[in-house]
Each structure stands twice: as structure tokens, then as C-alpha cells.
């Protein structure tokens, strides 16, 4: 493929520029800032750039222009001429064969064709090999250790956007995919977790089935025990009833016997009562009144007799006291004269003492006064005692006299009572009161006995014990008959109590109730468990669905991981294969180019398969020299040779155009000449475009295009056409 013409409109510094290109070596010359690098960029953009990539093309706008421009590239491929136009403003692309016919407007198809023409897989590979920028040479020159790395990048055939990037991207995908694989903590692990929950749920369901069976068994057992408990309860109730009936029968029999006994006893009492009533009838009410009066009179007589006796005893006592008091009174009266004597003595003493004291004022007067006073007091005491004793005596005397009068009156009353008693005795027709008392005592005994009998009868049965007892006996007989009839209706087995008695039945009933309660608790628990399970019944399908979703995700991740791993392995293998088989060819071509470049001084190049380390055979030393040990100029020569050789190898000698942007600026004159010689040699069968500011290249060029520096006052636009020998070609 050969580029025949370039036209740029509104592309960075180029307002409207065009030039013809051709096979062989084309030198594009111009001073710094003339637009050489921009032109090289425009060529690549014109060939492979996507005009519709938005903001990315905005930087290509010409200075001062609001609209984006266009790039038109004319080219010859095989026997045909093509025109490739990219309108950056409209974002369109057109590849058209001159003369019409073949017309392509799809970017993908255009790129596919271009890559086919140049013989490379990607545009990145083309840029990495055929476009030698200023920096590439300079960098290699500055750091020779990068040579093999750089070479490796070139040999990969895809540059930084190629296989390395692809492998890096594949490696980056692995962690994301691994997360969803088992152990990664993603979908697969979550699915495992859910599967465990699902298994637990199934176990719960299985347990629930067992619970259901158990519940059924419990329900059946409960039903049986309930029936049995009800039977036992009924049996116990009947047993209690039968017991009560028997007990009642026995009680009635006993009551009947007791009542009969009571009736017999009551009848005896009633007979006795009749006899008593007959005995009592002998006493008339008049006799009763007379006897009562007699007893009243007798009581009064006895009272009078008792009062008289008491009064006599008192009289004796009072008489004795009077005698005593009389003796005392007598004695007192005998000493009463002494009192008068003492009183006269005291009067004398007091008078004498007073006189002495008043007249003589002698102490003897005082003594006499005191003695007189003392004697006077003693005299007064004697007189007092006599008076008192007299009074007591007199009082006692009066009492004795009164008592005697009372005795007389009592004696009279006693006599009257005695007469009354006698009178009453006579009235009742008796001579002795004891006889009357015996008769009355007998009467009273009858009365008492009658009351006792009546009380006994009342105790037996009310006011009419016989009738009551007879009535009760009839009732007992009826009830007994009824009880016996009821017992007679019972089944024969029920008439007899069980061996353990009602208590045993009741105990068994209580035990059955305990079992019932346990069973009911078990039933409630089982029903609770089942209810809880029913409540969570919707969880199963949800888990199944979630697990399925996660498993599908994990399966997809596993599949993607496998594809990615396989892709990486295949790419690695392809990378190694792409370098190693080409090695010999590459070494041979590079050696040829190096021989040309060095005038035959060096003609053998070796590339290490594993590390891509490059060596050059140094004939003078008779040994291989590491590329890193070469001088800067020599290593640049080697690099360019390798690049040209590489293009030959990987394009299978399709020889696409090569572009070099001031690659030899830093070389000395000799090496520059050698390198230009190499370019001339390379340009014999391919198109080489050299961008330089040095006019020395004009001599060796097949075509020279001159770029003028920007004008200070103008738009900075280079001239429309360079000083190309074929400069003004057909309009594009």
C-alpha cells in the first residue's frame, strides 16, 4: 500500500493543506513548529481514527475554527487507487475506489480493509511498528535497559493495546468471577448457604411428618384414654351411687329398728304417764290449796320460831354486854371525885403561881402555873372518861330493853303461828304435819315423774310421738322399698362394688386424667410445631428459586472463568509462538538491515527467545555484544533495523508505509549518513516518509515536501502545498 496524497482541512494548524506522496523515500522538511509531528498524527488519524468519537476528536480542531475539519488520504493498493475521506465535523467516513464502484462507509469495514492491505492485525500494531516518533528513539537512547522491553512490546505485534493489555484485562476479570465460584463468598457460597437452609427446611418438613404421625398417634391414644376415663368415671359414679343406695338401705334399716324401739319405749312412758295422771287425780284442788295454806302456815311458824330463837340468842349477848358496861360505869363513877380534886388543886396552883409571878416575879410562880396546868389537864381527862362510860352504858341499856320487848312480840307471833298450823291441820283432816308432808311429797313425786315422762316423750318425737314414730316408720318402709327397687334395676355386675372399691376406681380415674393431661399437652405442643411449620410453608419455594438463581449465576461465572482462563492460556501460547518461530527470520532481516546501516561492520543479530534480549555480533571482538552495552548511536541503529525487520516479518512482506519523525537528530553526522543510507535501502521496496528539519536529507529523497513555519500575523497555517516536485496534483 502506498499513500499518494494527503489533504487536510481545519486540522490543528493546517487550515487547508495538501501534498502528493509517492513510493520510495519522501522527506517532509520544515523547521520546528512547522507541523511535521501534526502531519504524522494526521496521517494515522486519516487512516485509522474514528471520526465519530465525540470529544476525542475535538482536540483536532484547527486553531480559531469552530468547526472540525476533514482528512483525505489518497492511496494505491495493488492495481487500484482509493480515496479515504474522514469528515470530523460530520463524523462520517468514506472509502471509495477511484472511478466508482467500490464504496465503503462503515468504519469497521474500512479498518478491516486497511489492516488487510498493510498485513497487520490491529491499528495498534501498525502504530507501534511503522510510526517511529521522536520519543521512541530518544527514550531508547536515554535508557538502553529498556531496549528489550521495548522490543518485546514491538514483537507482540499489538503494542500496549495488544496482547499485554488483553492478558491484563483477562487477569482483572478473574477476581470478579472467582467471587461467584465456591469459596469466593459470592453467589456459589450464598447458594451453598441456602442449600443448607433448604436441607434444614426439608429436615423440618420430615420432622413435621413424624410430628404429624405422632400427633395422629397421640390423638388416637387421647381418644382411647378419654373413652377409658369416661368409662371409669361412669363406673365410679355408678359405684358411688350403688354404695350410697346400700348405705341408705342400711341406714333405713337401722333407723327403722331404732324407731321401733323408740315407739316401744314411748308406749311404756305413755302408760306410766296415764298411771301418774290417775294418781294425781286423787288430789283435789281444794286439798291442794289447804295443803298449800298449811305449808304456808307451817313456813310462817318455822320462821317465827327461827326469829325467836335468834332474838333470844341476841338478847343473851346484849345482856352480857350490859353487865360489862355496868361494871365499867361503876368504876368510872368511883374515880370521878378525884377529878374534881385535881381540878381544885390545879386552880389553886394556877392562882398562886399567877400571883407569885405577878407580884414577886419569881420563878416559883411559873412552876406553879405549869404544875397547875398539868393537873388541870389530868382532871379534865378523868372527867371525860367518866362521862363517856356513862353514855355507853346508857345506850346499851336501852338496846337490851328494846330487845326484851321484841322477844315478847316474837313469842306472841310464834304462838299465833302455832295456832294457825293447828287450825290448818285440822282443816286438812290430819293431826300431824309430818303425815301431811308425806302425802304431799308423794304428790310432788308424781308430778315430777309426769314432767320427766313428758320431757322424754318430747325428746322421742314431738308432741305426738306415737303418731310421729308411726309416720316415720311408714316413710322408712316406703323409702326402703324404693331403694331396694332401684338396686334391683341395676345390672347384676353393677350391684356389686369392684374389688378395690370406689376409691380404686377414683384413683384409676385420677391417673387416667393425668395421662389425659399429658397427652393434651403433647398434642398442643405438636400442633404448635405444625402450625409454626405451616406458617413458614412459603419459604421452601422461595429458597428453591433463590438457590436456582444463584446456582445459575455461579454456573455462568464458572463458564466465564473457564473461557477467560482458556483465552489467557491461548493468548500466552500465541504470544510465545508469534515471537519464537519468527525469531530466525527476524534475526536474518535485522542482520541485513544492520549490515546496510553499518556498512558491513555488523551483520548478525541474535534475539533471546525467553527474555527477548538482543545481541549483536562484534567481529572485532569475535563475540556477541549485548544491545545494552552498545553505544547510543549503535543501539538506535539496531533498534531501527529491528523495527524494519519486524515489519517485514509480521506483515509477511506486505511492506506498509513507514513514518519516521526526526529519528536521527541526536546522531553524529557519520551515523546519520549511515542511517539515511539504511532508509534509502529500505525505501527501495516500500514507502518511507521521513519528517525532518534538516535539508541534508533532500539529496537522498525521492520526493521532498516543505512545510513553512507559521507566519506571525497569519493564522499559522502552512502553505497549501509544499515544494513538492509533484506538488499540485489533482484535487482531493
Amino acid at each position, binding site marked *: 500500500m502506498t499513500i499518494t496524497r494527503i489533504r487536510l482541512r481545519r486540522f490543528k494548524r493546517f487550515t487547508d493543506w495538501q501534498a502528493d506522496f509517492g513510493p520510495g523515500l519522501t522527506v517532509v522538511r520544515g523547521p520546528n513548529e512547522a507541523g511535521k509531528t501534526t502531519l504524522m498524527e494526521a496521517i494515522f488519524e486519516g487512516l485509522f481514527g474514528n471520526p465519530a468519537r465525540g470529544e476525542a476528536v475535538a482536540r483536532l480542531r484547527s486553531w480559531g475554527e469552530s468547526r472540525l475539519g476533514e482528512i483525505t488520504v489518497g492511496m494505491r493498493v495493488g492495481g487500484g487507487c482509493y480515496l479515504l475521506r474522514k469528515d470530523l465535523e460530520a463524523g462520517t467516513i468514506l472509502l471509495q475506489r477511484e472511478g466508482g464502484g467500490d464504496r465503503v462507509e462503515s468504519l469497521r469495514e474500512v479498518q478491516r480493509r486497511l489492516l488487510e492491505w498493510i498485513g497487520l492485525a490491529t491499528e495498534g500494531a501498525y502504530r507501534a511498528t511503522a510510526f517511529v516518533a521522536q520519543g521512541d528513539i530518544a527514550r531508547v537512547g536515554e535508557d538502553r535497559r529498556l531496549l528489550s522491553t521495548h522490543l518485546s512490546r514491538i514483537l507482540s505485534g499489538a503494542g500496549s493495546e495488544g496482547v499485554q493489555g488483553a492478558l491484563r484485562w483477562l487477569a482483572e476479570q478473574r477476581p470478579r468471577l472467582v467471587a461467584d465460584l465456591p469459596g469466593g463468598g459470592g453467589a456459589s457460597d450464598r447458594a451453598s448457604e441456602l442449600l443448607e437452609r433448604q436441607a434444614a427446611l426439608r429436615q423440618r418438613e420430615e420432622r413435621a411428618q413424624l410430628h404429624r404421625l405422632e400427633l395422629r398417634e397421640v390423638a388416637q391414644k387421647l381418644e382411647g384414654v378419654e373413652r377409658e376415663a369416661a368409662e371409669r368415671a361412669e363406673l365410679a359414679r355408678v359405684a358411688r351411687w350403688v354404695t350410697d343406695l346400700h348405705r341408705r338401705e342400711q341406714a333405713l334399716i337401722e333407723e327403722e329398728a331404732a324407731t321401733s324401739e323408740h315407739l316401744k319405749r314411748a308406749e311404756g312412758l305413755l302408760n306410766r304417764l296415764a298411771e301418774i295422771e290417775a294418781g294425781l287425780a286423787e288430789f283435789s284442788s281444794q286439798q291442794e290449796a289447804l295443803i298449800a295454806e298449811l305449808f304456808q302456815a307451817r313456813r310462817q311458824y318455822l320462821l317465827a320460831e327461827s326469829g325467836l330463837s335468834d332474838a333470844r340468842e341476841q338478847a343473851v349477848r346484849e345482856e352480857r354486854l350490859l353487865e360489862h358496861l355496868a361494871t365499867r360505869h361503876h368504876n368510872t363513877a368511883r374515880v370521878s371525885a378525884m377529878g374534881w380534886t385535881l381540878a381544885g388543886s390545879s386552880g389553886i396552883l394556877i392562882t398562886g403561881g399567877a400571883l407569885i409571878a405577878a407580884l414577886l416575879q419569881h420563878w416559883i410562880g411559873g412552876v406553879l402555873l405549869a404544875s397547875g396546868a398539868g393537873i388541870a389537864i389530868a382532871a379534865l381527862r378523868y372527867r371525860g372518861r367518866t362521862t363517856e362510860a356513862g353514855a355507853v352504858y346508857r345506850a346499851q341499856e336501852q338496846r337490851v330493853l328494846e330487845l326484851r320487848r321484841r322477844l315478847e312480840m316474837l313469842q306472841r307471833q310464834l304462838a299465833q303461828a302455832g295456832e294457825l298450823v293447828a287450825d290448818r291441820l285440822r282443816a286438812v283432816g290430819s293431826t300431824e304435819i309430818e303425815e301431811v308432808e308425806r302425802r304431799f311429797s308423794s304428790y310432788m313425786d308424781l308430778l315430777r315423774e309426769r314432767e320427766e315422762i313428758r320431757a322424754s316423750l318430747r325428746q322421742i318425737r314431738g308432741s305426738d310421738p306415737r303418731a310421729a314414730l308411726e309416720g316415720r316408720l311408714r316413710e322408712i318402709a316406703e323409702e326402703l322399698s324404693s331403694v331396694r327397687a332401684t338396686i334391683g334395676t341395676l345390672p347384676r355386675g353393677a350391684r356389686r362394688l369392684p374389688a378395690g372399691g370406689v376409691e380404686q376406681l377414683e384413683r384409676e380415674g385420677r391417673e387416667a386424667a393425668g395421662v389425659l393431661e399429658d397427652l393434651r399437652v403433647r398434642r398442643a405442643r405438636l400442633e404448635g410445631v405444625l402450625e409454626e411449620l405451616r406458617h413458614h410453608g*412459603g419459604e421452601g419455594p422461595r429458597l428453591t428459586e433463590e438457590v436456582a438463581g444463584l446456582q445459575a449465576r455461579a454456573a455462568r461465572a464458572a463458564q466465564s472463568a473457564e473461557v477467560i482462563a482458556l483465552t489467557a492460556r491461548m*493468548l500466552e501460547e500465541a504470544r510465545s509462538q508469534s515471537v519464537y518461530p519468527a525469531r530466525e527470520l527476524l534475526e536474518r532481516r535485522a542482520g541485513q538491515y544492520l549490515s546496510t546501516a553499518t556498512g558491513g561492520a555488523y551483520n548478525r543479530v541474535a534475539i533471546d527467545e525467553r527474555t527477548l534480549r538482543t545481541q549483536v555480533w562484534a567481529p572485532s571482538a569475535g563475540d556477541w555484544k549485548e544491545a545494552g552495552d552498545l553505544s547510543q548511536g549503535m543501539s538506535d541503529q539496531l533498534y531501527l533495523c529491528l523495527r524494519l525487520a519486524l515489519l517485514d516479518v509480521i506483515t509477511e512482506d506486505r511492506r506498509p508505509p513507514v513514518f519516521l519523525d526526526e529519528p536521527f537528530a541526536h546522531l553524529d553526522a557519520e551515523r546519520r549518513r549511515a542511517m539515511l543510507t539504511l532508509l534509502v535501502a529500505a525505501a527501495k521496496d516500500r514507502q518511507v516518509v521521513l519528517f525532518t528539519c534538516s535539508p541534508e536529507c533532500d539529496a537522498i529523497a525521492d520526493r521532498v515536501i516543505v512545510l513553512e513555519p507559521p507566519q506571525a500575523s497569519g493564522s499559522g497555517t502552512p502553505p497549501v502545498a509544499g515544494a513538492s516536485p509533484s506538488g499540485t496534483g489533482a484535487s482531493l
Partner: protein
Amino acid sequence: MSGRMTLETMAITEPAEIQPGGGPAIYHLADVRLGGAFPFLGDAGSAHRLQVRDTFVRAVDQGLDPPPALVLITGNLFGTPFPPRDLAEFACSQIERFSKRGIPVLIAAGPLDACYEKVYAQGAFSDLDRVIVFPETPRAVEMRDLDLTVVGVSWGAAPVHAEALAAISVHRRQRYLVGALHMEIPESEEGLRALRRQIAASGAGYLALGGSPVRRDLSTEAVTAWCPGAPEMVVPEEGEGSPLLVRFEEGTAVQPVPVVQPVPVTKRRFVRYVFEPAAFNSTEELVEAIQALADPNHAAIIHLRGTSRINQFIDVDDLRNRLAGGFLSLEIVDDSLPSPADLEAATYPDLSVAGRFVGVARAEMARASDPEVKRRVGAALRLGLWLLEGRRPS
């Protein structure tokens, strides 16, 4: 087996429900799966269960208009042996709509809600009048008013085998003889032939079967036999199911032939689309083609089959994420392979990485005997070339 058969008589108290001038009409449902799991729908499963309920309500509505003489449900009504309380109540409320109108409902349990220890769905219908669940051994329910006998059997601890069909004819006492059971429908032609022979030997006027998520006619010359299929989509299988209205025409024939009429109630369905990637110039074109088919009531699986270009990588995950919103559920499977011719004609320079990569892929493809390995190599080739061209999946 017939020795264990029990007979039960049931009087139809509302003869008005019988279509005048015709034999009894039977409303036949199966495989409803009200509480089933739908793993193929993933997260959409829960919402779909609600849809299945809605569809069942619609099926009952349709079934009551006009009311049939009898309702038969042949298996998998619940789709789970442990229906949760709300589901059991819902099913009861719907079944009660038939029974309250005097329409008997006879149920033969299926494998997904099999009777356990003679109890169906934890006794969900035990309180409903006129609802009979067939036991695990064949049982005949005789309806004299309809001159009809239904012989049914439920799944229990053991599956229902085709031999149960032979027991049906033994119990012909009425004019119309109907069998009701859920069976595993064999996939193979040979199995199907054997099943049809057994169906023919059953002697039933109509055989109400369950066991297929889509409607299937298993009739023979002598016996009309149908699986109605699920009223709503329950499995990732193309085809449709619906309740069936089975009407015995009045006539003089000893064994009248019923007329079977589907009653469509389905809202959702499963669809399968196949695309050939090579036919599309870009992924966007493929996206547009799929989008044109989008339907929120469709659970779709899209197979990318046939040939793809050697550098045509399709990011299936990205495609699924972009398109899933338009479908009830969406699965995309890329089984396409670069054609051997394309692989041979690849124009990458032989010594370039891309050229060598194609060579490696060719060798791997030649070595692979397993189609899955071939598919994987094809996918790796497409991805590798795509990456070498500097492109990256979004």
C-alpha cells in the same frame, strides 16, 4: 386391586346444573401448582406465585359460567405437600365456590402434593362439604343422579402406576364412567404407546389425567384422555395448558364420546428464541432484534446458535442486564461457534499474535471432541481476537 375398591354414592341436589338436553359436563383442571417453586424464574418466582393464584381465580370464574356438573382436579393443585396457611385458605375459598353451589369437587393428589398417611395437604379441604379427595387406592364415587361413576386414585407414599387404569372398567355401574388420576407421562415414543394401550384398556368414557404442564391429548380410538396442563405457566416448557370443559353428548351410544373444549385462562408463557450471531453486524443489532420480541409476560430463553464471526464477542451478561427488564425472566445462552471455514480463512498475519492465536484456536478446536469444549474454545477465540483488536466488554 379391585378388591380394595370402595363405592360411594353421592346425590346431585341441583339437577338444574346439568345442561338440558346433554350429558353431564365436567370441568377438568390439573397441575395448577398454587404454591409451587419456579426456579427457572429466579427472583420473579414469588410474584409469579401470585399470578398463578390470579389465574386460578380466573379458572374458577370460567368454570362457573356455566356451572358444570362436576369438577375434577387431577393432581398438583398445591404443588407442595405443606401448603402454608394462607395458601390453604385461598384454595379452600376457591374450591368452596364450586361446592357451595352444589357442584362436587373430586381431587386426585399428584406427586407434588401427595397424600401423606391418608391426609391431603394437611387436611386443607377436610371441612368442605362435597369435596372428596381420592385415597391412595382406587375408589369409585357413584353419582346416580348423573348416571356417572368416577374412579380415582391419589399419589401417596407410592406413585400411581398405569396399572391403576385397568381397574377402572371393573366398576362400570352407570352409563358414564370417568377415571381421574395423575400419572407420569413418559417421554419416549415406546412409553407413550404402552400408555395408550393401557388407556384404551381402561374402558372409561373420559380419562381425566394430570402430569403434563402443557395440554396433551392422549386419547385413543376407544377412550378420550386428556392432560389439561397448567392453567398458568409453571415450567420452562413451550406450549399452553388450560382447564378443560368435557361434555358428554346425549345419545344412544352405550359409551358416549365426550367433547373436550379448552378454556383458555393463561396469561404468561415460556418462549424460546434462536438467533445466529453471524447474521448481525453488531451487538446493537442483536439487542434491537431481541427488544422487538420483549414481553413482560414472557419467560424467555434466547439461544445464540449457529455461526458467529471469529472476532464477534457477545457479552452475554451485559446483554441480559440490558434486556431483562422487557421480559418476565430472560436467559441468554451463547452456543454459537465460529464456522470452520471462517476459521480457516482468517486473514491475520501468520506470525502476528492474532495470527498465532487463530492457529492455536484451530489446533484446540481440532483436538476437541466434546461439543462443550469446542464451544469453550470458540468463545475463547472470539473473546481473544476481540481483545487483541483493542476492544473491551463494557
